[in-house]
């Protein structure tokens, strides 16, 4: 090998190549659909694809223009400048602590528990309608450091997140699509009228969002992606 060849090999390390994106999920999504010729932008691919995968009533809708992604009752806006929540966020509207069996009677969907974590330390329900039926049930673990919010997946939006780029990543829980938001982000409650309740805005830890049998879940806490997925898979 002469000098120029050696120099070229050495140059290789100095060439700017951005970190490789993770395309596993997006490739998989395209492979599970019938073949079609198109060359989409990555964001546009998500729109078409996710709508095809989940039933339309709880379809995830990504808006390529605003960067807003809706999935499982959660909207996710990717913005370099998230609105920072205040110091003392309000709890979800009408939130109260109940025993597990009372909580089950207060919501219309089944409350499932992750086998991985066992029974919760506390159970909360929130946002009752006129008949007292609540919209959200929350299981708390580790003194509240780890929480699972469950809400009816057929409902409209229940939470709004603002995340910094790169924002949210597609992952899978038991072969179904899920979203992983890595790192702290602003989280607000979206009430029945579709209003973002700014007073509930707080800084949320890393979160996994998934759906199982018409119920939407968000798991939040100091756990890594793999661990969060394991917990999600253990819901019974």
């Amino acid at each position, binding site marked *: 090998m002469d000098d120029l060849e050696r120099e*070229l090999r050495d140059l290789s390390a100095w060439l700017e190549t951005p970190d490789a994106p993770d395309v*596993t999920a997006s490739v998989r999504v395209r492979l*599970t659909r019938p073949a079609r010729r198109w060359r989409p932008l990555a964001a546009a691919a998500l729109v078409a694809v996710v709508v095809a995968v989940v039933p339309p009533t709880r379809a995830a809708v990504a808006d390529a223009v605003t960067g807003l992604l809706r999935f499982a009752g959660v909207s996710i806006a990717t913005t370099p400048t998230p609105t920072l929540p205040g110091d003392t966020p309000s709890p979800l509207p009408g939130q109260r602590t109940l025993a597990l069996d009372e909580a089950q009677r207060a919501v219309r969907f089944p409350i499932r528990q992750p086998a991985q974590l066992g029974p919760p330390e506390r159970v909360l329900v929130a946002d009752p309608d006129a008949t007292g039926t609540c919209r959200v049930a929350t299981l708390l673990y580790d003194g509240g450091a780890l929480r699972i919010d469950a809400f009816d997946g057929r409902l409209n939006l229940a939470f709004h997140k603002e995340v910094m780029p790169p924002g949210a990543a597609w992952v899978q829980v038991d072969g179904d699509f899920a979203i992983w938001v890595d790192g702290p982000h602003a989280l607000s409650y979206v009430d029945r009228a579709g209003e973002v309740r700014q007073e509930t805005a707080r800084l949320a830890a890393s979160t996994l969002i998934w759906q199982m049998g018409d119920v939407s879940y968000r798991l939040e806490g100091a756990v890594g992606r793999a661990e969060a*997925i394991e917990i999600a898979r253990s819901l019974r």
Partner: protein
Amino acid sequence: MEPPTRGRCHECDPNGGLPLDDDALVTRARAGDLEAYDLLVARHTASAHRTAVLLGAGSDSEDVIQEAFVKAYRKLSRYRGESSFRSWLLAIVANETRNLHRSRGRRDGLVLRAAAADPTSEIAEDGAVSAVLAGERRASLVEALRQLPVRDREVIVCRFFLDLSEEETVAALGWPRGTVKSRTSRALAKLRGLLDREEVRHG
């Protein structure tokens, strides 16, 4: 990256416990095992992406490799295993990159890391001087590469930047072996010429 479903371990052979090689994964993927294909995608994303970037796909590299992985899956039955899965895949990436150039009418050039022109001040003075010289040399090399005809640059990228063997370059670029050989030496000769001229100009 993490395999999305840790419980069902496809990376491991259920009997031997060893990671499956590409050929075994290809066989499974061909039979419709998408999780096996996920693993192939994850395993080869980095080199596919680097190939697309170095061949000039720039900010469209993600689209290019996504398209390439989808096409590769659909063509999997035609992969006969004469070359490695990697070089067969890189051929598809190279082809997709060419399609991209055709559709948008430009290709993005090679970009040197900022560090190349900015040796850290902690290096001793002699070191700093030679680092500056080395940085300048790299910059003129990149400049010379930019002036090469496309096919010459492609063969340089494959042989020296992606470190593909002659055989793998044959597979990746889809040229006859003789063409790869002659094109490589011609490209190197042209580069030498361009660099000499550069040196003359700078004294």
